[in-house]
């Protein structure tokens, strides 16, 4: 399914086309004072026109930058399109950024205009206006609390629109002339990427970058005019830009803005979107909400849930593995759908969902299965800001939970000799704003360097391992990512923490901490008696249980990068023992040092390790632990 843009090669031209084609249909919808208020394509176009001319009246020229900061509201996208209509570019700023970040982006992007949503954002800007000499105007859209602010550079959104209307009366053709001057190769936006090290870099994206991405994605994951979409992730993020702006304009679907960030999930239910794009935490949140609510519900509902959920799981597995579902299971699924899945999806607002995608991080297979079981065909996507947000997506007929799918049309992906994921497509960005050195690095050899390590499976699906700099290698040079494997281990409910070891060693081993609550409950059901964590983690049956979990993970790993041996630690890793950081990240070097004896046993022939150590409690007391750990060998890789 392809969409012809009929010569409309910029966002403003598409907006004009949609205003003509779709006219009174809803383009934007915002919940305000408890009611969904619509903006039609025609009014959307009109407001962009006036705001754009208002900016021109205030001195915005071609090539000028407009910085925008605030929650997702119609004014955000209106300001963006207004800047682009006047031949300028938008610069989105994350609304929860601190002062230094906001200041850096505004100054570095040379923005003269800042559109700030409310008092909170205006305070940030005016608080450091002295350090932002290039800024000439600060425009706010929500006047609450700002009535007593008097600053020469501060004015309201309405005021800019009013000036635009005046200019439109004087020069009725000016807006159309401005729009006509734009072309696909023009700079549309600068997206600042949150650098984990150093200052953020501003990726410059053109209209054609963004539109080719939108159309290529559309070919493999189609949307329709009139579809509903809920925009609740930061608009400064490329992922939200690609949906709420690029795709919405190209396809002509309706973008809904929630009332407040906190009401997003509730608003999703009211809208019942056809298209939903969310990071893993949202999907995980929906999943756990269901599980918690099921525990509190009536006995009959719980009975239905417990009996019918396995049907969905079975059908999902059959469909994903073989592509076909036998008639018996289809009939059973029909009943389960009627009794359970449809009401459940209705509760979550997913009843009409046709395209559900997750991106930004890895999503656990159990969560994936949960949604597939109830008929929500959730897909993983992968990409960088520098390639307009997306390069890969799960194909409809081959959704594999550990991959990020296949490249979208017009996109090539290959793996460099260093194991880095490289990609090439018409959507690769122009370069970093005022940072040629970084641009050269990112685009060397004509390929976009992602900085991610990964590999391609035989069927062409891409697996992302980790950031390249976090990848380690075994003594024989085989590369592996401890974090990738640890994350997959932690997808198991029985695993609380895992540390994978193997740097410069012959094979991989794991230190695993069981989740005492879950394993404890499991043990109770199996009638296994135990006293303490140390006792529980030393049980043979618990070892068997965890071995199965690790085997499952091993199956998804290349043969050389599988875990060969593991022990269950006699205590949980703890921040108080300095084994974890306060944000619960494993302090690898410290753990390897502290458990040196165990690790050397893992690489020796020992079957058991005698432990005699002291542990520290939260109140500073210490206790002595004596235990006998066993080493479990796995049939990994056959070697």
């Amino acid at each position, binding site marked *: 399914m392809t969409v012809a843009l009929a010569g409309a090669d910029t966002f403003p031209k598409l907006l004009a086309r949609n205003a003509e084609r779709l006219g009174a249909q809803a383009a934007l919808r915002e919940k305000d*004072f*408890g009611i969904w208020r619509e903006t039609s394509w025609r009014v959307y176009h009109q407001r962009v026109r006036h705001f754009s001319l208002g900016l021109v009246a205030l001195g915005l020229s071609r090539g000028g930058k407009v910085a925008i900061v605030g929650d997702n509201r119609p004014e955000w996208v209106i300001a963006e399109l207004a800047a682009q209509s006047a031949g300028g570019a938008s610069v989105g700023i994350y609304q929860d950024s601190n002062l230094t970040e906001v200041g850096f982006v505004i100054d570095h992007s040379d923005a003269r205009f800042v559109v700030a949503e409310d008092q909170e954002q205006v305070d940030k800007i005016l608080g450091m206006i002295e350090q932002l000499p290039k800024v000439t105007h600060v425009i706010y859209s929500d006047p609450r609390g700002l009535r007593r602010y008097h600053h020469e550079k501060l004015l309201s959104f309405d005021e800019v629109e009013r000036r635009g209307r005046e200019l439109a009366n004087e020069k009725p053709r000016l807006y159309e002339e401005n729009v006509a001057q734009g072309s696909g190769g023009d700079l549309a936006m600068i997206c600042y990427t949150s650098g984990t090290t150093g200052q953020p870099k501003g990726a410059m994206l053109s209209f054609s970058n963004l539109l080719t991405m939108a159309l290529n994605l559309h070919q493999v994951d189609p949307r329709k005019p009139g579809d509903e979409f809920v925009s609740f992730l930061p608009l400064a993020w490329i992922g939200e830009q690609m949906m709420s702006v690029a795709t919405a304009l190209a396809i002509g679907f309706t973008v809904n803005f929630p*009332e407040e960030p*906190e*009401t997003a999930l*509730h608003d999703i239910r009211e809208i019942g979107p056809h298209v939903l794009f969310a990071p893993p935490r949202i999907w995980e949140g929906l999943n756990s909400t269901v599980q918690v609510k099921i525990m509190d519900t009536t006995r009959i509902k719980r009975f239905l849930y417990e009996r019918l959920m396995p049907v969905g799981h079975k059908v999902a597995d059959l469909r994903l593995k073989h592509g076909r579902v036998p008639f018996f299971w289809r009939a059973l699924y029909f009943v389960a759908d009627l009794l359970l899945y449809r009401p459940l999806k209705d509760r979550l607002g997913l009843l009409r969902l046709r395209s559900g995608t997750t991106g930004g991080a890895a999503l656990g297979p159990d969560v994936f299965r949960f949604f597939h079981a109830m008929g929500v065909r959730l897909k993983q996507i992968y990409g960088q800001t520098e390639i307009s947000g997306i390069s890969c997506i799960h194909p409809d007929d081959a959704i594999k939970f550990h991959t990020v799918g296949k490249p979208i049309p017009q996109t090539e992906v290959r793996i460099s000799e260093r194991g880095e994921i490289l990609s090439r497509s018409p959507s690769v960005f122009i370069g970093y704003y005022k940072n040629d050195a970084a641009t050269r690095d990112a685009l060397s050899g004509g390929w976009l360097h992602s900085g991610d390590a990964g590999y391609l499976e035989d069927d062409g699906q891409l697996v992302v391992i980790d950031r390249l700099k976090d990848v380690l290698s075994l003594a024989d040079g085989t590369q592996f990512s401890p974090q990738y494997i640890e994350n997959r281990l932690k997808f198991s409910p029985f695993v609380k923490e895992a540390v994978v070891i193997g740097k410069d060693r012959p094979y991989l081993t794991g230190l695993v901490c069981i989740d005492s609550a879950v394993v404890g409950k499991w043990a109770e059901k199996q009638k296994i008696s135990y006293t303490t964590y140390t006792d529980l983690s030393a049980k043979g049956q618990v070892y068997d249980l965890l071995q199965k979990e690790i085997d499952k993970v091993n199956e998804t790993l290349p043969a050389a990068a599988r875990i060969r041996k593991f022990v269950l630690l006699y205590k949980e890793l703890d921040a108080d023992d300095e084994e974890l950081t306060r944000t619960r990240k494993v302090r690898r070097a410290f753990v390897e040092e502290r458990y040196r004896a165990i690790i050397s046993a893992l690489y020796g022939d020992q079957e058991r390790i005698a432990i005699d150590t002291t542990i520290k409690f939260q109140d500073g007391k210490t206790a002595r632990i004596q235990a006998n750990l066993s080493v479990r060998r796995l049939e990994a890789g056959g070697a």
Partner: protein
Amino acid sequence: MALLEIAGLSLRFGGVTALQNVSFSVEAGALSAIIGPNGAGKTSLLNCISGVYRPQQGKIVFDGRDVTPLRPAARTRLGIARTFQNIALFKGMTVLDNLLIGRHCHQKTGVLGGGLYYGLGEREEIRDRARIEEIIDFLEIQPIRKQVVHTLAYGLQKRVELARALALEPRLLLLDEPMAGMNAEEKEDMARFVLDLSEERGTTIVMIEHDMGVVMDLSHRVVVLNFGQKIADGTPEEVQGSREVQLAYLGGEAAA
């Protein structure tokens, strides 16, 4: 002109004197606080103003009118609203329904008209819902609009109670320990709302509060009660400097 005037108020329960000859006045637009040790008669005073208790002596004049003989409902219609120390919401109903009840005194439709709905009933419903949405927006409780009250955290219930009082569109708002039992963040939010109410909307507020930091920061005027008697009345600074207040709070023999 004083919006509320209290003159020589005395309240007795059998042999116990809860209030003895208390007089003070509240200017329109002011934010006044009533403080005092436990059992000083603060809530009794508020109950007299809202009409729950009938004082044996004294007069309560609201906006130039003697309201002493009026029942609570009649005082509500004049524009006196209150919140309670122990939350008094309809626990099984949603936030929205609780707030709509707050609009009841502004509705003219009877059982019949309301039942038929179309016409006046519909217009009033729409008007009242719009007003309530403004309050929801003001107090930032959009996320809990449709939740049942008893499922909410204590601090949020307090906020809902304030919202219901605001739904009355009061000219005088009585707050009985609006911040009791809240954590620091909830207190900060509540203080901001009380201040906004006073400054942006110009609502006259009388508040009982134990948190001295809040009282001294927010209020224009402080009335101190001890054993049913007014022992001080003035700006926060004046009251803090008063020796009697210090004695009442810190103990010691109240020797003159």
